């Protein structure tokens, strides 16, 4: 057979199997809808403005009109949300104990009373909090202090020689969603690259499909190459759908170049697929494939930043997890898509992926079994 004939074999397998996949509703669900479901769940969780928001209860024990006004003013605050359903300390304590409330603002009896001979109201508000909400309480106290200072200034003219003001920087920083989104891209790559072949290959073996192909002159590399092509095309399509949803619905801002993103993600997809091919190609049946696949896939999922950013990990763990094969995909996607970096800036990521690609495919070819 000439090389041209051998490559025609690859092409025929690739095209027929691609058409087959679009008839497979289960595969379509896991390829296209499943990652989208995660995108909606996680995207919905942190698509907010990023402002810190506490839940507090306001307990007004004072009968003074000023206390009424002050409570209303607190309601307009954006830093915290007021749980209007809580009106006494006992209920507030219970909710704080369950973590449903971060703190309570108590306006004690007589708060806002205008003392005889004075022109302005006085009083001290109390912030109550639990051990677990110390930082919330500190923030709350500061906010209240600022609030009260503004009021104080209206009643008593004072000089404020030292002040601080905050200004927003125009440069856009990475939002939580940027991390979530690129993490979910990694999750989708992992799903189609490992969980796909992990279930498909044992099935093909069970039905004798691979055994029958084994009686033909088809080479393993031809078969692998056709699977790699198919997986890359389908994987890129599924990522494209995620990008479209993220841009349209979650207002994701892409600053990078798609022409750099596509080959980079294709490299990532093919590398991860090598792990799936190794497991699926080696396993005689699904019972062999599932435990090995899960032992490899789940640590990858949680250590690579697919579900929470790696910068939250301790340094030593960050240093180790930099080298696992899913991390460079997620980091690289974020660096290109949301930070506008170029392929030439991604030396470490491409290097790690390249090394893994050689390793996993060396294993995949070694352990492959037709039946």
């Amino acid at each position, binding site marked *: 057979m000439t090389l041209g004939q051998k490559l025609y*074999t690859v092409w025929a397998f690739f095209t027929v199997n691609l058409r087959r996949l679009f008839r497979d509703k289960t595969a379509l669900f896991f390829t296209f809808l499943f990652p989208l479901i995660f995108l909606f769940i996680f995207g919905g969780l942190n698509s907010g403005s990023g402002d810190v928001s506490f839940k507090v209860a306001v307990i007004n024990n004072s009968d003074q009109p000023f206390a009424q006004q002050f409570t209303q003013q607190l309601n307009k605050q954006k830093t915290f949300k007021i749980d209007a359903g809580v009106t006494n300390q006992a209920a507030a304590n219970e909710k704080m104990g369950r973590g449903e409330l971060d703190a309570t603002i108590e306006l004690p009896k007589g708060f806002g009373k205008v003392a005889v001979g004075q022109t302005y109201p006085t009083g001290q508000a109390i912030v109550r909090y639990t051990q677990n909400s110390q930082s919330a309480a500190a923030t709350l106290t500061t906010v209240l202090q600022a609030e009260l200072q503004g009021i104080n200034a209206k009643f008593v003219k004072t000089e404020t020689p030292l002040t601080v003001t905050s200004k927003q920087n125009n440069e856009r920083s990475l939002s939580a969603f940027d991390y979530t989104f690129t993490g979910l891209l990694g999750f989708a790559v992992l799903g189609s690259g490992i969980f796909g072949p992990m279930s498909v290959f044992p099935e093909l073996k069970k039905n004798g499909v691979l055994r029958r192909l084994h009686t033909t002159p088809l080479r393993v590399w031809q078969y692998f190459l056709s699977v790699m092509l198919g997986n890359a095309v389908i994987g890129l399509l599924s990522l494209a759908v995620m990008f479209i949803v993220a841009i349209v619905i979650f207002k994701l801002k892409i600053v990078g170049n798609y022409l750099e993103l596509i080959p980079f993600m294709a490299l990532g997809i093919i590398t991860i697929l090598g792990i799936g091919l190794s497991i699926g190609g080696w396993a005689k049946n699904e019972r062999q494939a599932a435990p090995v696949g899960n032992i490899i896939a789940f640590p990858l999922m949680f250590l690579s930043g697919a579900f929470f950013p790696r910068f939250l990990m301790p340094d030593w763990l960050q240093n180790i997890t930099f080298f696992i094969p899913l991390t460079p995909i997620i980091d690289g996607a974020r660096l290109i898509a949301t930070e506008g970096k170029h392929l030439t800036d991604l030396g470490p990521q491409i290097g790690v992926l390249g090394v893994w690609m050689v390793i996993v495919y060396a294993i995949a070819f070694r352990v492959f079994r037709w039946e």
Partner: protein
Amino acid sequence: MAETILKVDKLTKSYDGQIAVDSISFEVKKGEIFGILGPNGAGKTTTLEMIETLRSIDSGTATIDGVDVAKNPYAIRGMIGVQPQTPGFQDKTKLTELIKMFAAAYGVKVDPKKFLEDVNLGDKANSFVENLSGGQRQRFSITAALVHDPKVFFLDEPTTGLDPQARRNLWKLIEDVRDRGISVILTTHYMDEAEVLCDRIAVMDHGKIIKLDTPKNLIKDLLSRGFSKEQHVEQANLEDVFIDLTGKELHV
């Protein structure tokens, strides 16, 4: 005398010290149907799988048209067609697409329609394998194994589980294949099938070929040793009744 296409010489295979195929030798000629009979565990499938390059050969040689099986497995695979016991085809794939894939596996392009029409499946071109009946599946499996015009065609228990009509239809197909000059090697548990279909038969037991001859000669030999069984007066059996009642035509 037709030329020899397959030559098996002292072929041996053992698993974990247990001998499965014990130094067997035989030859298959061009354009004959050669049957391998024997009880389960006799070594039939192992013999076929060694010749098909699916299993390593411990000792001995097998050559197809002068090509050594152990030394040139990929060349051999291009020269043989294999129909395994269970026709393994992927689901959700049209018959035409499967033919295209199989031809591609041999590096050739064919007209899938023609191969489907050869086995009366022209109207099923756009069906999936999982929607075919058992007989249709076997017919499809046969035509899929012939896309590259092989020299030798192996069938492992081709008619197991088929109804009488489908079996007869398959016999006819297998004879057509032979008439195209392709040597057919098959295993079976059905003696009537072997008697009708096979030009020569090798009977295997315990990894050895204990007898090899034409069906006629095998029977003649047994009778000449004074064998007789209870005589039946009926000139028909239940299968004849069944065929008479339901016809020879394929039902699906």
